[in-house]
């Protein structure tokens, strides 16, 4: 069995280590430790030049790896146990690898494990690490193929190979016909829990969502972004109240808005992170757009749950009047209060109704009452009793936005004004690096809508009454400094914010152009290249063409490098090519005069003028420089005209 050189094993180990290291973040610690141990062991053997462990020991260890995976996962099927098993087996394989064939198998497995990282995460850091692993594996293949060489030239060769593969990679990435859906998702991943809003609301729900700094969506506006007070992104609209929790009422859907959009238009691009729900979190109120569903609660919905990052071109009309001719049944629903709950708030509502001369004045009176009650805005309010609205309004006087919204809606309903809770997001931050508006989970919000005769549904944000800075400055501005906040939502560390902005801008590009490169984007790209029809057939043809162009270009480049450099050699090569085509090739080692002499002997009638051309070439090529200009001219002239008969 041919044994491997030390440098070959070194490359193999480096490649495997770079491949396995990022897996440590999700592998069970026992498996990670085992892999590290096996790699170190192999490295030690390589360093000392000692013997590989006996086969029976390897079998025993393989059984150990299998046992560890079983113990950890209780099965072999699925992503997690599969990757763990492969990681263990790759490390074990290295301990029995002492031949080229085994080493190539290990490299192949390394390539697969580099892809395996994307089953967990697809961010740029993982891509960079996987690329590093690929680089090391290519270096390994080079080491397996060639002679022993120092690290630097070998690494340079591997990097060159990677670079040469880049154009082909781009062609395949851009033109390989795409399927709808995330590139890396396994079926099991698509339905896993994702943080975000849900379609019911209890006190404390929104506060819990707010603790996450994760990005909910991004919006890139054409032109100036709207002022913060307009940035209300509508999620579930909650009408039904059972005394504890809020739920959406029945709603009708159609593929046209339930309103006539008017007023100022704000076109923007929404890039929604997957949240496994139908709602699209459009800014109030989205204009007509194809392929989407509109609810009669003015939500924008998708036909399928959003399971991968989604990019939408939308137009918001913030000033649109909505619900002018509202369905009486909806209004009925928006007045219902469960009996036996919150008696003090109901009494408040009735007092307000009596105090107001006009129904239209009631919301303003309620807001004034809220403000006068000195309600505190906090992420961690004191516990509430069974009648939580009463308890919030009259006892603890501490709450988060859902408390404010719920209390306001209950008060309105008690006063006889149709009202409902709207959840969604409010605010967001402009990233100064690329100008996109980034909305995070910490921007989750709940507000209220009231319905007034001839004015339709109007947004009232009772949180603004107590914490006006929440609306203008975001959560961090509205809360006291001591509040627990996700690190990334804090505004008191400017350098951290600057860094976050920059990283986020790059991430956004990555998401938009790499991960979010879906069939729609592909169609756009192909259309922008001037190819209208983009069925998979034409895409395949384009891909084949692109591949041919890239490979042809690379081939030409490679050939150009071995072609002789200067004009004298080119002319002579042309002469030789023509003679070769006529059946008289020159031997690679044959000098010009010998060649001409041989042709003159073998086929004198073929090329009578060859003798003088060859003599000229020999003098120009090997004679003292600088060459005679007339000789040079004669040589180029006769060699260009030279045609063997």
């Amino acid at each position, binding site marked *: 069995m041919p044994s491997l050189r030390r440098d070959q094993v070194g490359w193999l180990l480096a490649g495997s280590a770079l491949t396995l290291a990022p897996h440590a973040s999700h592998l069970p610690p026992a498996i990670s430790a085992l892999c590290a141990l096996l790699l170190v062991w192999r490295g030690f053997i390589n360093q000392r030049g000692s013997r590989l462990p006996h086969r029976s020991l390897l079998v025993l260890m393989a059984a150990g790896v299998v046992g560890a995976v079983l113990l950890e996962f209780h099965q072999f099927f699925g992503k997690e146990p599969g990757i763990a098993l492969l990681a263990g087996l790759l490390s074990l394989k290295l301990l029995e690898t002492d031949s080229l064939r085994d080493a190539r198998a290990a490299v192949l497995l390394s390539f697969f494990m580099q892809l395996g990282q994307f089953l967990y995460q697809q961010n740029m850091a993982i891509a960079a690490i996987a690329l590093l692993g690929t680089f090391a594996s290519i270096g390994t293949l080079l080491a397996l193929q060639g002679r022993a060489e120092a690290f630097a030239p070998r690494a340079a060769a591997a990097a060159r190979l990677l670079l040469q593969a880049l154009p082909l990679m781009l062609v395949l990435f851009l033109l390989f016909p795409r399927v709808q859906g995330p590139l890396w998702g396994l079926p099991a991943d698509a339905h896993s829990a994702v943080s975000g809003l849900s379609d019911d609301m209890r006190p404390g729900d929104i506060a819990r969502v707010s603790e996450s700094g994760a990005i909910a969506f991004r919006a890139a506006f054409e032109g100036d972004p709207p002022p913060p007070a307009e940035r209300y992104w509508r999620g579930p609209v909650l009408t039904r109240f059972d005394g504890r929790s809020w739920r959406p009422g029945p709603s009708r859907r159609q593929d046209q808005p339930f309103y006539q959009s008017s007023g100022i238009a704000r076109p923007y691009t929404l890039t929604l992170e997957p949240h496994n729900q139908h709602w699209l979190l459009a800014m109030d109120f989205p204009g007509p757009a194809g392929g989407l569903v509109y609810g009669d609660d003015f939500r924008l919905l998708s036909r399928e749950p959003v399971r991968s990052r989604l990019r939408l071109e939308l137009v918001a009309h913030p000033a649109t009047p909505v619900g002018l001719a509202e369905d009486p049944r909806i209004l009925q629903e928006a007045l219902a209060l469960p009996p036996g709950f919150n008696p003090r708030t109901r009494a408040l509502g009735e007092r307000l109704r009596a105090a107001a001369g006009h129904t239209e004045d009631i919301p303003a009176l309620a807001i004034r009452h809220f403000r006068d009650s000195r309600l505190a805005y906090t992420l961690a309010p004191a516990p509430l009793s069974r009648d939580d609205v009463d308890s919030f309004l009259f006892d603890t006087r501490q709450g988060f936005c859902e408390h404010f919204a719920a209390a306001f809606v209950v008060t309105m309903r008690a006063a006889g004004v149709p009202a409902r809770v709207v959840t969604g997001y409010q605010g967001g931050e402009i990233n100064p690096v690329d100008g996109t508006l980034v909305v995070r989970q910490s921007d989750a919000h709940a507000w209220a809508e009231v319905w007034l005769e001839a004015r339709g549904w109007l947004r009232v944000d009772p949180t603004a009454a107590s914490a006006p800075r929440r609306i203008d400055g975001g959560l961090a501005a509205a809360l006291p400094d001591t509040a627990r906040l996700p690190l990334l939502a804090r505004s008191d560390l400017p350098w951290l914010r600057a860094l976050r902005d920059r990283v986020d801008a790059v991430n956004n590009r990555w998401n938009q152009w790499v991960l979010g490169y879906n069939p729609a984007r592909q169609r756009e790209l192909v259309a922008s290249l001037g190819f209208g029809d983009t069925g998979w057939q034409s895409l395949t043809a384009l891909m084949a063409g692109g591949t041919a162009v890239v490979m042809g270009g690379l081939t030409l480049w490679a050939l150009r490098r071995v072609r002789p450099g200067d004009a004298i050699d080119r002319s002579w090569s042309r002469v030789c090519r023509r003679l070769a085509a006529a059946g008289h090739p020159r031997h690679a080692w044959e000098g010009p*005069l010998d060649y001409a002499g041989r042709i003159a002997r073998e086929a004198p009638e073929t090329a009578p003028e060859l003798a003088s051309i060859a003599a000229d070439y020999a003098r120009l090529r090997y*004679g003292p420089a600088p060459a005679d200009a007339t000789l040079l001219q004669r040589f180029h002239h006769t060699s260009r005209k030279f045609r063997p008969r």
Partner: protein
Amino acid sequence: MPSRIARRLTEAASRIILGKEHAVRLALACILARGHLLIEDIPGVGKTTLAHVLARLLGLQFQRIQFTSDMLPADIIGVSVFDQRDASFRFHPGPVFAQLLLADEINRATPKAQSALLEAMEERQISAEGQTWRLPEPFFVIATQNPADQIGTFPLPESQLDRFLMRISLGYPDRAAERALLAGEDRRELVAHLPTELQAGELDSLFEAARQVHVGPRLLDYVQALLEHSRAGAGFSLGLSPRAGLGLLAAARAWALLGGRDHVLPEDVQAVLPAVAGHRLRATGDTPLGPDALARRLVEAVPLP
């Protein structure tokens, strides 16, 4: 015109050594490149005649040593004899003090005698009795050996073979040449009456002209590629030394001069390669290759740069 003189020499020599233009030309090139020549062949094919002809044509002072197994170094380099008249030793120079020395059947002598000659070839001077005598200028050795008769001989080791710029063999004449030889005059008579072709100083100008032949960078690339392949490439177990490389270039220059050119072509290198490299290279494998096969193996493995 050095090239015209060179052509005249070749023609004159070929008139006597019939049908051996290539070998004669190689021998001339060897001398123009100021190298020593080893002629390896069976007796009677004209080795000695060739040496004679060259000496006559070039106007060189000629000496001949027939090597035998009982020969001592003093028989070659000379001996000090006690002179009774002035009661002192006087050095009597041996036959090595000639411009062209024919060392016939060099492999018959013991290594001791051989090395005395070979030292003289390398140093171009003789040290004896604590004194040093310079050999005449120019100084050439044409050695012959008989490869077929190996009994009681001392074949030259590689280190000694390397001292010879070229090793050539003459071989049997072809049919027409043989006929002309049989029908013609006695060769010895012809040589005896052969006029010297060169005027005084013309030989030196020929040497100078051979040194001046242009070698371009592309040709150096080629020579280097040949040397490298002979050392590192497949097919050879013993490669060409740097001295062999220098010799190859000098011989190619002289060959180009004989061809009437002022620059060296790869063809020149290839033409002298069997004679220059044949006794220095050793091929891998069991069957020993002749010089032509060896040179062809090397030439065909190295493309022109």
